[in-house]
């Protein structure tokens, strides 16, 4: 059984079985608390009846005009609760929370390492598509300089899903895989 509940700072004591996973980053305290302060309804968890955290979503909003969107900063699920649709539920909840009042964003986006096929499949199933490749996003300074030097290990795909406010679906494109940008070109 799984229920969605708001995340509380004290839940940070309960994340070991999720955050000890090698692919899940464990951030500074201020980082979590900043998300809770600024986007209190976009940081939530999925729990068992005894309040065991099975997974969580950490998201924010940013951008101006038609770039106004929600950004998924982390979505992660306890290994014992994988492959039963919890990440999908966390993502679809974000759509519900952000496409209407008070946020009403145009789209949702996220960055995923180009070689993380599993996650890319997951997001494609949920209706996300690749908008562009961010060359050298996870790499060192050098790798962030040349937009033509692509490398799946250190590049990220910026994936997006248009929401109902984006009536003409201007925030997405069909051939995003071919668009390369450098990290410093992404500003909202």
């Amino acid at each position: 059984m799984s229920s969605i509940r708001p995340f509380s700072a004290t839940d940070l004591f309960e994340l070991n079985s999720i955050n000890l996973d090698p692919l899940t980053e464990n951030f500074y305290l201020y980082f979590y608390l900043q998300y809770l302060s600024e986007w209190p309804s976009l940081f939530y968890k999925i729990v068992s009846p005894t309040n065991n955290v099975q997974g969580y979503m950490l998201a924010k909003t940013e951008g101006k005009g038609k770039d106004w969107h929600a950004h998924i900063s982390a979505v992660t699920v306890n290994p014992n609760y994988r492959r039963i649709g919890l990440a999908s539920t966390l993502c679809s909840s974000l759509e519900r929370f952000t496409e209407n009042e008070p946020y009403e964003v145009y789209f949702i986006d996220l960055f995923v390492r180009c070689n993380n096929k599993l996650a890319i499949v997951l997001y494609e199933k949920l209706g996300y598509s690749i908008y562009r490749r961010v060359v050298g996003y996870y790499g060192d300074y050098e790798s962030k300089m040349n937009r033509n030097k692509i490398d799946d290990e250190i590049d990220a795909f910026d994936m997006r899903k248009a929401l109902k406010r984006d009536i003409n679906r201007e925030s997405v494109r069909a051939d995003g895989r071919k668009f390369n940008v450098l990290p410093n070109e992404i500003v909202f």
Partner: protein
Amino acid sequence: MYKDSAIENAVRAGNLRNALVLVSKKIKEHPNSSYFYALEAEILALSGRRHEAESKANQLLDKLPSDPDALKLLANVYDLCEVERDVFDKVCKKYPSVDLVYEYFTFSVARGDILGMQKASMLLTRAVATSKQSVDTQLFKFWAATCLMLACRCCSLAPSVQKLYPQLGVRLMEQVGLPTAQHVYVYVRLLQLAGREDDSLRFMENFLAKENDLELKIIYLETLDKMDESEELFRVCQNYLTRLNEDDWDTWKLLIKAAKATKKLDRCRELIASYSSRNTGLAAIELGEPDAIQQYFHEYGAKLCCFTDLKPYVKKGVSNEALLKNSYDKIVSLKEPTLDHLIIAVNYMKFKALDARDKQLVTDCCMLYNKTKFHLNRLEEFDYFPGYEFLVLAIEALIEHSSFDLELVYSLIVILEEALVKNKYEFHLKLWLIRLYTIANLQPAADELYRSLKIKFVQHDTLSYLIGTRRSIGAGPLVEVARFYTQNVHREIPHMIISGFQSTAMNKIQGFMEFYNRLNTSFAKISTAVELIRAYRLKDDQKSVDEQVSVLRSLRAREISDNRDFKTFWDCGVHERVAEVDSKLPPYYSIAHLRLLMLRELLIYDPESRKTEERKKELLELYAKVQLYDIEKWSFSVLFQHFDGTEPLPLPPKPDTMLSSEFNYYHAVVVDTYKQIAYLKGNTRHLKSILTTLRNENREYKSMARKQLEDVRKKVKVFLKNNFKELDISDNSISTSFAKMRQDLDSSIAYLQGL
């Protein structure tokens, strides 16, 4: 915070005499600055001249200085002198300027003091009302209402206050209005505290009609339930589940409850049947639908959640039921079970372990592990391999049923190390290994694994106990653990609490405050300080000892918040037997034990305290109550001899094996006891002769330890053949493990020889 770097440097370097000279010069230069007077009082307090410090502080406070920095210093002086005084409150009432009261608010936040925040925020509403500055008066009213709510929810208040605050808060919120979900949240909480649940329902309903706020939805449903509004509860739950498509277990559960109360079970069944999800599968089980368990097992038997989901519903002996048994038997007969098969078998063994954990379970688990481990060669780098749970189940069962000895510990280490080679990110196995290394005398290996898990920040608070209990091999990673409290907690959290108020994330503030206070009074923070004091004392590093003592002295609350995570360790296994298994292993500190250790340090290093007599009394009470190792009892008895002249206990004999961390611990405690008495300038003649004997013996330790390890290696080989034949562990793996263990044991022994 210091306004003069020369004085700051002198204080930091512990050169307090020089700091006093410098500060008196400053006072002469700036005779009207309250700041330097306050600083003088603080330096006096730090030098142990607490009476003088207190009277200087009183003189200054009587003049009601309005410099916030001076007030913060004064508050610290009173803390150091163990005197309760709300310095800001006194001054702010006289000079309620916005700036000063705002400082009062931030100061209270930094102290985690909700009542202080409440007083300050109330004063702020008045200060801004009369202020000429352009400030957002509505915002501060919102803060004040929030603090009233927090005070009622988190503090114990007199009944009259508990009644008054919600009313005041409601009135404030009515002036502020309800434009956002956060406003409605605070208002609703206050209405409920004022006993006006009915009204709160109305406001939530109106708001939720235009905005689907999760927090308010949950409070709304809970309130409907509490008020027995079952018809409405049914309607609202149905709306969330079907119209808004929110497949949420809490909502399903309330729907079932409301359906029972309103005799709408048929409608409820229809809804469940019309929806196909894991939650509805479980809702059908909750409703007692025929075949619902079988149906669930059919759909989710090959998912890891199956065991925890079904556990509350299955009867004893479920593993004998045909459905489970047949699928298990089929898997056992396969040569290469798939990943789905593997998960079904994991679930099956967990159900079986609920019933009995006998020798057969160990054999079966080992057989299954061996049969499925080929998947490890096929998985991608970070993929999760559920088969490791067979090992944990087997290990738990074996510990539960064997006499717990070092042969077993070393054998289990070999098994887990071999499993980690192919599954190098498996954190449950690593946690288990850390536990075992610290029982064996292999702390360097435990530290290495702790680091390899990249444990940081709040994880230190929950997990450092693994490497920080009776530690007898230097400070190691505990240095980083201690830094987490002084740096991250104090620098990051108060700032973010204020930021939470500024961005009006009012439904998060209670969590922030609880989080902050639990870290400030945390078990790991105190035990790290206590363990570090021993490590530094052993190395005669008095400056570092003093730093840790100040951590202990600065604790204002008596309570200790135990945030240690014992759960993740068992997350994979079967929690029901945790107590039986854990009782076989050497214990961690209890809260009473930790308090005992803390009181000892305070008695040694803070003899000037007003609380000394009280502390002595409590120490004796705890000493009589807490289960201590013999060597710990001896150590306390030596301290008591110093204080009261009572006869100490005889020194217990040395542990006979070096392959247990008790060996290092024994030596560390003996040397440490000597250092305590030496610091207290007591009679150390007898202790010195004990040390000389120990030191004379310890030259042989390294070769003796190696010999003992070699003996155990032979036994482990036999033990693994007899008990874990199915795992097929090669002699080569055993040799590799023992080669590494030899190095770690050498380091442990070398540390001890250096004492």
